[in-house]
């Protein structure tokens, strides 16, 4: 019921956003209205769970996803057509713009999964499973699961359907990343139940309250700093975004 209400409110907000006749501006926000039509005003996420939030995600991560759609490693015809005629430099500018936006997050949906399932999800997210050779989510996605600049996305504030769709797509090869595609190896080790448990727990976690602490971490901990730059192309700027 609250989900329904939220959907309605977001739909109304989205409709209001489209109808609002702001004056024309020579800005990157104006240029990316093709993005915000689906991903919500300022990239705050679309209303139905399938158009994820863009605001505040690490610039390198967003840039790599745009390349992935353009170059056929991710598949969604609308996205591919939109980014097809754009250059690396412009895609990086778009990514950097959305990454710099700081918007409040809506509270997470109440979890529908059983307590045991959520417990298993929490364990996998925070500690991993040594016998299955599964690293914990926090090992790469940041202690607070808010991601690590510039390439690793946060895992909070995303609907469970979206998380499931992404991990499922990785498992079937529908979603790929630049080599080394670390996440593909990890997902290959995960059974359906573990995916379900992990996404159920992640989708139920609130973001840290303060704006500073919900930003992606500046860097991986020193012990992990030697990890390869998973799934990432070099920046067209010649330095990290």
């Amino acid at each position, binding site marked *: 019921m609250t989900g329904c209400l939220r959907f309605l409110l977001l739909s109304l907000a989205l409709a209001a956003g489209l109808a609002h006749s702001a004056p024309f501006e020579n800005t990157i926000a104006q240029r990316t209205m093709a993005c915000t039509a689906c991903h919500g005003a300022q990239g705050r996420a679309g209303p139905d769970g399938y158009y994820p939030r863009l605001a505040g995600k690490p610039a390198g991560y967003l840039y790599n996803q745009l390349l992935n759609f353009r170059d056929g490693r991710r598949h969604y015809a609308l996205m591919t057509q939109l980014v097809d*005629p754009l250059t690396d430099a412009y895609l990086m500018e778009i990514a950097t713009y959305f990454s710099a936006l700081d918007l409040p997050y809506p509270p997470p949906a109440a979890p529908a999964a059983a307590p045991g399932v959520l417990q298993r999800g929490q364990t996998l997210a925070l500690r991993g499973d040594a016998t299955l050779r599964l690293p914990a989510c926090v090992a790469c996605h940041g202690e607070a699961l808010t991601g690590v600049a510039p390439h690793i996305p946060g895992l909070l504030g995303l609907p469970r359907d979206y998380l499931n769709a992404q991990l499922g797509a990785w498992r079937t090869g529908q979603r790929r990343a630049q080599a080394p595609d670390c996440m593909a190896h990890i997902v290959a080790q995960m059974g359906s139940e573990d995916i379900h448990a992990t996404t159920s727990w992640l989708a139920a976690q609130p973001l840290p309250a303060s704006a500073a602490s919900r930003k992606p971490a500046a860097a991986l901990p020193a012990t992990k700093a030697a990890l390869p730059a998973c799934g990432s192309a070099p920046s067209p700027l010649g330095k990290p975004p």
Partner: protein
Amino acid sequence: MKRAAYRALAGAAIVLVLAAAATLAWQRHGQDDSNVPEPLIAVAASPALVERGAYLARAGNCMACHSARGGVPYAGGRAITTPFGAVFSSNITPDRQTGLGNWSASDFWRALHHGQSRDGRLLYPAFPYTNYTEVSRADSDALHAFLMQLPPAVQPATAHTLRWPFNTQAALTVWRALYFSPGGYEPDTQQTTEWNRGAYLVRGLGHCSACHSTRNALGANNTPLDLAGGLIPMQNWYAPSLTSALEAGVADWSTPDIVALFKTGVSARGSVLGPMAEVVLHSTQHLSDADLGAMAVFLKSLPPVAVRGAPAAAGASASSPVFSAGAKLYEKNCAQCHGEQGQGVPGAYPPLAGNRAVTMASSANLVQVVLNGGYAPATAGNPRPYGMPPFVLVLNDSELAALLTYLRSAWGNRAAEVTPTEVQRMRSENQR
């Protein structure tokens, strides 16, 4: 399904009836001037020749078809979908096993000029040799020199998925007998050098007629000079007529406006989207101002031709329910960028009032743009284009039809209504 069966039968009948013609044609095309002995000592191509070849490869946009999405440039593997099945582009890097590594300049010339592979196989005209036959031997040699110095990529060919009888050499023999004879560009001595240069580029390497003309039931377009517009097979984009003032004819454009469109993707008179955005991005923006100017001069000189089957423009009356429904949708979804009076914003959003892309007889591009949105190409001259959002998830077929009918009837625009069926057809074609 019925249509496919009919096509197959028609194709088979033609194969039989024209068997004699085929034999004759086979003999005729077997004799060509490409069996020239190669020089015994291979001469390294000069940097100037390679550079010239690189430029010509841009002019021909070879990379666009000869590269798979995200794949190695020029290594082939892109599906060119046709009504007869898919043809996969070949690897034209100099790998010896899977590419052109063993091809001499004469072998390459034979492919470009005669549409035949090194082993004598007839090539599918998805490779536009009906146009490339007009390319000069000197330009062919420069292209060859450029391709031969690319990094060799090992990428075996993907098998074509053409249906019978279109997958046979016999069918190609017949097709060639009907629609192809090796030619060459014959300069028109009545015209200037500049005009001839433009004609050579448009008809030959530019292969503009590959999209900007109608294809018949066997996928052939009339001549390299037919630029009277046509629906691009399988893509559901309409390549507008370059010979009609109602479509994309440029007779009354200034040469600088035409050059700007080729160079940047936008101009004072119009902008490009869809398949032409790809052409500007990968090909025309890289051409010299002199060559673009020459193409402009040639295009401006094309004699006007009436658009085939264009209905008398009607448009919805301003008092009709569909007009007022469309007007409301316009106000809500479009006016913010395109303006209350469809005037647009110069340099960012095209005007819709008096815009030929809105009013031309075919509504295909209009439906595509509103369904899927899009960006003009990010070119050196317009590196940060503005975007059009997709409305495929926002508007249903009736709403979209009402909106487009309004666009085609408001602000002095006079074009036929768009029906929900047209929108629905495009939506389902896009999902195939």
